[in-house]
């Protein structure tokens, strides 16, 4: 900016510098005025619905009263954070969130990779496309419907899957209310819904593998399993590590809607995670400041995780994501 001003100043020595700068600033805006008009709705959106709430997290340090408003409410410093960290609920939430995230990483994360590798071994094109068409369907179905179907299938009052399992084992499991079944159900639901869809990105990476590599491996006498191990897997290892980093970056984001829908009064002890707890305490019970403090804590941990995992990626010699 400054260098261009100086350069033009040398070319036009008569012209006084400040006026020149001002004119170029206004002419640029004038020239692009329609672009700014187009920009305005989007910019307003971000300011009102993204940045105003960011400023609003300050109520975490207040005793916010809706009838007093932001300016009249009293400031309480870190009281809400202290209360939260001293509350037994804090340990429970941390535990529940963490265990669900680990289950997700261990059971759900590898599932699309395995299915993609299996699909890649299929040599009958029409069968492959048929399977793909089928397994993508649940991705588009809403979480409400997934949870509703789970209820219909597993209810102790005539749920078909519940009855089948009862016939097989001779026992009646109350899957929907038993806290022991909450986490397996959440993971099974997400595996059912998203495994098929998750294969797309790996299949795309597999499609870009050079056929000559396979041919060379065949000439060298590699068996199919050796080809899988030495050609196919290295081809998708980059995608796998990027997705793993992304997953670690939002490790604490359990699927909010899903957990909210599957929570009931009998499984709250294991079902409550940070996000749903914020809803129950903030919206249902009206403790705005306290719940905002919990949300802020979670956001800050989230930022640390994102930058931490990105740093890790760069250290490992992978291209960073940001």
């Amino acid at each position: 900016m400054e260098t261009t001003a100086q350069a033009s100043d040398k070319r036009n020595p008569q012209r006084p510098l400040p006026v020149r700068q001002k004119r170029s600033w206004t002419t640029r805006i004038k020239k692009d005025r329609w672009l700014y008009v187009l920009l305005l709705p989007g910019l307003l959106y971000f300011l009102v619905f993204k940045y105003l709430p960011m400023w609003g997290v300050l109520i975490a340090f207040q005793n916010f009263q809706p009838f007093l408003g932001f300016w009249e409410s009293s400031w309480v410093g870190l009281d809400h954070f202290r209360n939260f960290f001293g509350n037994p609920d804090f340990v429970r939430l941390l535990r529940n969130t963490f265990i669900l995230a680990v289950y997700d990483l261990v059971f759900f994360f590898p599932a699309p990779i395995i299915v993609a590798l299996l699909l890649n071994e299929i040599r009958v094109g029409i069968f492959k496309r048929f399977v793909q068409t089928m397994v993508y369907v649940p991705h588009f179905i809403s979480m409400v419907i997934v949870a509703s179907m789970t209820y219909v299938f597993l209810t102790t009052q005539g749920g078909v899957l519940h009855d089948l399992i009862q016939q097989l084992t001779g026992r009646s499991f109350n899957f929907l209310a038993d806290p022991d079944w909450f986490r397996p159900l959440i993971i099974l639901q997400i595996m059912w819904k998203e495994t098929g869809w998750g294969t797309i990105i790996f299949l795309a990476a597999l499609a870009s593998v050079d056929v000559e590599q396979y041919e060379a491996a065949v000439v060298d006498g590699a068996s199919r399993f050796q080809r899988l191990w030495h050609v196919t897997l290295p081809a998708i290892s980059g995608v796998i590590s990027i997705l793993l980093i992304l997953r670690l970056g939002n490790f604490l984001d359990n699927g909010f809607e899903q957990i909210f829908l599957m929570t009931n009064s009998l499984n709250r002890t294991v079902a409550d995670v940070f996000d749903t707890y914020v809803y129950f305490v903030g919206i249902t019970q009206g403790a705005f400041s306290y719940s905002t403090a919990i949300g802020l804590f979670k956001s800050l941990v989230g930022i640390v995780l994102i930058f931490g995992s990105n740093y890790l990626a760069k250290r490992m010699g992978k291209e960073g994501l940001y």
Partner: protein
Amino acid sequence: MHSRHDTLGERVFDVANYLFLTIFACVTVLPFVYIVAGSFTTEAELAARDFFIIPKDYSIAAYQYIFSSSTIFRSIGVSIFITVVGTITNLAFTLTMAYSLSRKDLMGRNTIMNLVIFSMLFSGGMIPTYLVVKELGMIDSYAAVILPGAISAFNLIVIKNFFQNLPPGLEESARIDGCTELGVLWRIVLPLSKPIIATFGLFYAVGHWNNFFSALLYLNDHLKWPLQVVLREMVMLSQLAVGDMSNMDPNFVRPPDQAVKMAVIVVGTVPILMLYPFLQKHFAKGMLLGSIKG
């Protein structure tokens, strides 16, 4: 199909692989088939039979029952309204902002891009956003389920990058011919971007149709609830007394709860399944677009 080099182990693997993938495909689809079958049958059959995909006794009582009052019709209307208006809003906000940000010479562009990216990393969270919506007086209005999500920062960035990669020659010649920026966007850029607009329009539309939580959060008036919220009330909280049997045949027996729930699930699923061919095509494309450039 089998090459001569296949060993016995590889053939066993092949058979197991086909079997596994067939089972996997069935597991994803059979629950829907059972729900559809169950919604068309009678209480006796539901109680007597285990898993079935073709009912023996056809009955449309469950559908007669759920459509006997206006609740389901109204919520479908609400969902369609939110989906249509919401998607148009999304596209209008996202495309205009993406276009102006795609112009590298725009003053302040970098600052605004940083604002957008930062909003992906940190958010005020549920409660402050709720309070902003409340302060704006939008509680119980459809604006509350449409405007707070008007732009997805991720979609915005992907579309902006797409606009940047359009050949610049056409836009410039239009500008030389005296086209304003609005004209360039409307006559040159948008027609060139039809596939990507379709993709992101579908992204947004499916999001609106499936959205449950904004409605729960911002719409207290149950007459304004979209289908997903009504569905949850009926199936998961068993609030099944939606039917209005006053106008019906006095011999009409209220269908079993399970069948009513299944019928509601079918009603909520069918629109998505009808769109599925488009969705499969465009979503896969959009997802790869995002993963490469985002």
